[in-house]
């Protein structure tokens, strides 16, 4: 059901898509362009700029939900939430000041708080989306519980724009806990993994974990009572609040040295200046999402471990096949997050290829939403969508 009136900006987007659909013109959907490096390179004929479609449609703090037009700057929305003592539970990376809400949902990337709170996808309540035929559709809603029809709103999270153009998104928000503290201790990788493991088996108010350079950082968020009690369990030295906030921000935004790869060749993964300026040679940055209890030796020499062990970052010269196999053995998958200079993406793309049934279903779903294959062709997987020419 169409609840919101069409704005001029939305009207313009609809017209562009309707034209592209009839002309079968390939469209690259763009918000703030801050996550253009993520995913596979898109060979499009035209860019659909959604960043002008801005505004908060509805926000009632006690409903724990906000509805926002997709082009709205993420920073502005977070500032609004903060004014009301609320936040997005998934702590989304921005990767640049221009980051939009639509880009955040389409990329589906969550930050350090993800395993302890929610993912972007978990928080999606509803979407207003434009399909490949230029039809404006609404799925989900603005309420917490909704099982009317297929869950096509959460399907949009992380879909990288291959199914449709996000116009509006409704998201669950949560209160900012009253207090926070970050504790740091020296630990080798195995020790850090074991500790994160042990803590995860108890109901503790942990809101972030990061092991790098031989140090384990644990962020707690909650009431004073909970922090005091948990601090005794976790141990380690407290960081000054400002220093700690800066650390978690730099981690979320991947501005720490451990993310730096030398990617200046413009091969489609070129850095946007936020990936640090280290010269890491030909190593690429891999993101391995795995079982949290995966042993240290199964994924040798990670540069960073997050999410209680479930996310491991690796700068490596290994082949895609080798890295993917490590991740597969650990119950997960690997993404080539940023390719090192002189290294091109694997032919089958930066994401781990799907099993044959899932791959076929992806093609069918793509056609179900975007019959002409015009949206972000190849961004998710090469071959998903029509090719230019």
């Amino acid at each position: 059901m169409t609840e919101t009136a069409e704005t001029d900006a939305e009207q313009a987007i609809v017209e562009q898509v309707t034209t592209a659909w009839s002309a079968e013109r390939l469209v690259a959907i763009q918000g703030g362009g801050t996550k253009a490096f993520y995913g596979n390179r898109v060979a499009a004929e035209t860019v659909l700029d959604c960043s002008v479609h801005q505004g908060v449609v509805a926000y009632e703090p006690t409903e724990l939900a906000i509805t926002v037009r997709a082009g709205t700057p993420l920073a502005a929305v977070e500032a609004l939430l903060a004014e009301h003592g609320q936040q997005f539970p998934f702590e989304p990376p921005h990767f640049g000041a221009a980051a939009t809400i639509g880009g955040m949902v389409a990329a589906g990337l969550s930050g350090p708080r993800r395993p302890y709170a929610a993912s972007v996808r978990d928080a999606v309540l509803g979407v207003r989306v434009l399909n490949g035929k230029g039809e404006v559709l609404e799925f989900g809603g603005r309420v917490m519980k909704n099982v009317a029809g297929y869950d096509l709103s959460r399907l949009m999270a992380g879909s990288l724009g291959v199914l449709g153009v996000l116009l509006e998104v409704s998201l669950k928000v949560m209160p900012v806990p009253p207090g926070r503290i970050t504790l740091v201790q020296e630990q080798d990788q195995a020790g850090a993994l074991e500790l994160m493991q042990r803590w995860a088996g108890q109901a503790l108010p942990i809101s972030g974990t990061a092991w790098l350079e031989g140090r384990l950082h644990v962020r707690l968020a909650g009431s004073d009572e909970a922090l005091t009690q948990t601090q005794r369990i976790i141990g380690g030295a407290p960081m000054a609040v400002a220093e700690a906030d800066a650390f978690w921000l730099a981690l979320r935004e991947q501005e720490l040295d451990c993310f730096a790869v030398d990617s200046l060749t413009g091969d489609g993964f070129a850095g946007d200046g936020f990936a640090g300026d280290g010269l890491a040679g030909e190593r690429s940055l891999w993101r391995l999402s795995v079982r949290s209890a995966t042993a240290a030796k199964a994924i040798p020499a990670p540069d960073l471990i997050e999410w209680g062990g479930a996310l491991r970052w690796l700068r490596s010269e290994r082949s895609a096949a080798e890295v993917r196999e490590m991740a597969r053995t650990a119950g997960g998958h690997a993404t080539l997050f940023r390719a090192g200079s002189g290294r091109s993406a694997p032919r089958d793309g930066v994401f781990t290829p799907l099993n044959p049934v899932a791959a076929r279903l992806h093609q069918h779903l793509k056609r179900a939403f975007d019959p002409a294959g015009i949206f972000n062709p190849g961004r998710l997987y090469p071959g998903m969508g029509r090719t230019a020419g």
Partner: protein
Amino acid sequence: MSRIPDERPLNPKPEVVDGLRRLLPRESVLTTEAELAPYECDGLSAFQQRPLVVALPETVEQVQAVMRLCHEMEVPVVARGAGTGLSGGALPLADGVLLSLAKFNRILGIDPANRSATVQPGVRNLAISEAAAGHGLYYAPDPSSQIACSIGGNVAENSGGVHCLKYGLTVHNILKLKLISVEGELFEVGADALDSPGLDLLALMTGSEGMLAVIVEVTVKLLPKPERAQALLAAFDSVEQAGAAVAEIIGAGIIPAGLEMMDRPAIRAAEDFVHAGYPTDVEAILICELDGFNAEVSFDVMRVRDLLLASGAADVRTAADDAERLRFWKGRKAAFPAVGRISPDYYCMDGTIPRRQLGPVLRQISALSEQYGLAVANVFHAGDGNLHPLILYDANNPGELEQAEALGGAILELCVEVGGTVTGEHGVGVEKLNQMCVQFNSAELNQMHAVKAAFDPKRLLNPGKAVPTLHRCAEFGAMHVHHGELKFPELPRF
């Protein structure tokens, strides 16, 4: 009156029974009237239909073989778990195979290190928490039917429970599914990790009501048990005050583990049934559960108590011990059967509304209740806006069932009108097909049909459920046009 929702022409192919007998042991293929009877409905007994045949496979290979056979013969298949669903999602088809997953009842493994459990779809919801308890872990979603409902059915319906606000729905608490496609292929979605590559098929499969694939294995997340849980019971002289108190608690930045409301008729029914100790001379009660560390819970209990009193609560009680806390919950969890004791039949609705609309919606429900001449008791997952009006009726009185359905339909349309949805956690099934026409326009429904076709182009998996055809909506829409807002409740609506 036909109560079969599907508009497909019947196309019985009795020879599928011979095919099934070749694939499954003799006792796993049921065909006699007596054998079929237990499968003729799920928890929504207003709809009944015996299937052509019931198949009870016990291995994944057998499910694959059954699906291959049915796909080849173009025989529709309805998958069924424990049959506790409340929307007729597992209603059989007269010319279809009812695929019972009851024999898939094994817990395949608990992985305490990764805090997950891998189970077969027929495992009962509560059995998972019981199996994990030794590790200090549990499975969070707790539908009221958790002693009986199966995890496969929970996934198919995206079931909720009384702790959703803090701990999420089924979709937030599962990691991986093994599925059989309509063609009989085995495939996986999700991962043992926290995300997986490609489109989020795990989210899409959750709540898809058996329309896209058959679930044969589920990996769920387990959570550590909090150190302490404490519950408060507050009594109010009006439902509006109770609703305002909910907004106050959440506005203060507190996310209770559970936050439930019951109105006067529901309170009385529950109290008479299980003697939970509820005050019976009040208009509404709120049950608020807080969990976490001992000291933290003690602090929050004081804050919530103050907020409740400031919101006009006539009385606030804190459970003296865990036994009393569980008694508070017992009344709430027994609300449906309790209402079943005071009325020959009841019809449970499942709308979700923005919480701030609670007062106006309950007033309107009360007006509708008078208009239709049927009493309504309300239980409400107040934290997340999920309202369960229970319509009391007697099916033995001619026309009363239809009256109850019409009242239910009007309530759901009201939920949509105020910005909510026709189903929060029970699913559409066959029950809310007409209301889907109110909530979604034809382009949106067409998109859902296209998604169905992406998985099941021949429409063999649970056809006729969850998403109405445009034809049906056109007919239902015509009722709107000709009769205004469902003012002719005596008309059969199915």
